[in-house]
């Protein structure tokens, strides 16, 4: 009897133990699976398109000079957060790909109570300069619209350069040259003198010279080969015409005289055109040199290296 009781108690406890261990086993499996699932979910939760990640990626693109794509990332980021650094980089990216108007709008957004106020104002002037509306640039300078307080001198220098590119009267030389640093003065003085006294050739003088001696106008405009050819061609045609007339070959004489007159008149016109081409070349070379110089100097604006460090 006692044995039976002990036996049944043993069986009951064994069953309880088995049930308990089974529960432990199931619980362990459940915990493992749920935790692995949670880990997987957490991994899945990393959103590459979250505003923060967009900003990070935009910065990466910006520093790799992929401005077109950086713009998209900054735009999406700025929908969620008005971060000045992001807006400044956004505006810089827009300016870099030539979307000047949009860049200007975004720079304006940083003019007041922003840590980038000074830089934005400088870039605002730079973009205005690059838009090549120099009259507008000068009026902005005169009205002192959004002028950067700490970098006024840089904008004044840029303003002086508009006079070198535009066809207007130059400011006083002392005022012009003295606004630049000592290291830039000699080059700026050279630009100033070349603008003030451009080595142009007179179109009237070229035409008159060619009227007196065919080809002389072209030699004056430094088009030597054309000048010599024009001289020989007009001379030979005139001589042939004269020779034919003296030998009573009237038709041939008239034909060659016509050709000689054409050559003579064409050469006068050509000399005036040659002077204009020469002057256009001088202007083009001068403007190119000025723009290259400004580009080398980053338009007198400090480079924002800190943005990619």
């Amino acid at each position, binding site marked *: 009897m006692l044995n039976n009781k002990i036996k049944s108690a043993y069986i009951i406890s064994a069953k309880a133990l088995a049930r308990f261990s089974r529960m432990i086993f199931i619980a362990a499996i459940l915990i493992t699976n749920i935790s692995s699932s949670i880990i997987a979910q957490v991994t899945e939760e990393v959103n590459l398109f979250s505003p923060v990640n967009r900003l990070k990626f935009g910065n990466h693109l910006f520093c790799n000079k992929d401005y077109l794509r950086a713009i998209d990332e900054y735009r999406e980021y700025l929908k969620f957060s008005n971060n000045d650094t992001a807006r400044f980089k956004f505006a810089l990216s827009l300016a870099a790909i030539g979307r000047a108007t949009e860049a200007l709008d975004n720079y304006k957004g940083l003019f007041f109570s922003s840590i980038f106020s000074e830089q934005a104002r400088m870039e605002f002037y730079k973009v205005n300069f690059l838009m090549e509306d120099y009259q507008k640039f000068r009026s902005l300078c005169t009205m002192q619209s959004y002028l950067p307080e700490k970098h006024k001198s840089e904008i004044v220098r840029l303003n002086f350069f508009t006079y070198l590119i535009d066809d207007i009267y130059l400011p006083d030389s002392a005022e012009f040259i003295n606004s630049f640093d000592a290291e830039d003065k000699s080059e700026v003085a050279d630009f100033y003198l070349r603008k003030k006294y451009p080595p142009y050739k007179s179109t009237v003088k070229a035409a008159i010279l060619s009227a007196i001696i065919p080809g002389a106008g072209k030699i004056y405009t430094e088009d030597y080969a054309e000048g010599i050819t024009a001289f020989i061609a007009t001379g*030979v045609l005139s001589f042939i015409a004269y*020779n034919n007339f003296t030998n009573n070959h009237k038709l041939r004489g008239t034909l060659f005289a016509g050709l000689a007159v054409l050559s003579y008149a064409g050469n006068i016109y050509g000399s005036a055109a040659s002077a204009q081409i020469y002057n256009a070349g001088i202007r083009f070379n001068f403007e190119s040199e000025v723009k290259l110089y400004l580009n080398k100097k980053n338009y007198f604006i400090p480079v924002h290296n800190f943005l990619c460090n």
Partner: protein
Amino acid sequence: MKIILINIIIFTSALFAQDYLQRQYNHADNMFQNGLYYDAITEYKRLQFFDFEKKYSDEINYKIGLCYKHGAKFNEAIKYFAAAESEAVKIDDIYEIKTQIIRTNILRRTTDRAHQLLNNLEADPAYRDKLNDIIFWRGWNYMFADDWDKAAEAFAEIDPNHPLKILAEEVNKKQYSVTFTKFISYILPGSGEIYTGNYLPGLLSLSWNILWGYLTLDAFTHDRLFDGFAVGSLLWMRFYRGSAQNAEKFAIRENIKIANNTLRYIQNNYEGLKP
């Protein structure tokens, strides 16, 4: 039983949960396959930026290179292919990337560079079994270099009846010999232009040469030596030389037209591999 079922569901969901990089890769690939190359580049670059373990690095560089190539940004494409090549390990992958660089050079028409790269590939003993493939791309390179004769020779090496060989031979036959065109123009001014199908300029050239030639010879026959030299050198010779130069120009222009038409035909109708 219920617990086991729940367990299975949770376990499988955890097992099949894709990580965000894989999803991003699929997303970018989807764009690539749909021809949205600009967006695909953005998404591949995003993946590359967030792939800190560089799990997809060489593959992404290759794909970005392909996108740039499809968008005709050949310089960028080569830059990314070169990056992919430096990271690739498998010999087949390296070969694939190398041929992509060659194909991009062909499209960019930097055919000398493509030729040099093909030579390097041919000289490499690792790619002995790819000789036909290398010859095939050499043929394409010759076509883009406007050397249709050599292109036909290259394709004939692979197969004497290769469709591109037949096309290259046809172009070679159709194209005008520039030397011959110039030569006949010196024999009879205007004939070169007529030979290249430019009848009006040819007849005008011939007429001017007849007129000034007659006046020159007439001057000499009447002992007006100065007249003869002047008209001869200033007018006749000018038109005589001009005729030959014009004929040369026309021949070159017509040859470019024939070559471009053939390339356009190949682009639209040839079903084999293209650069």
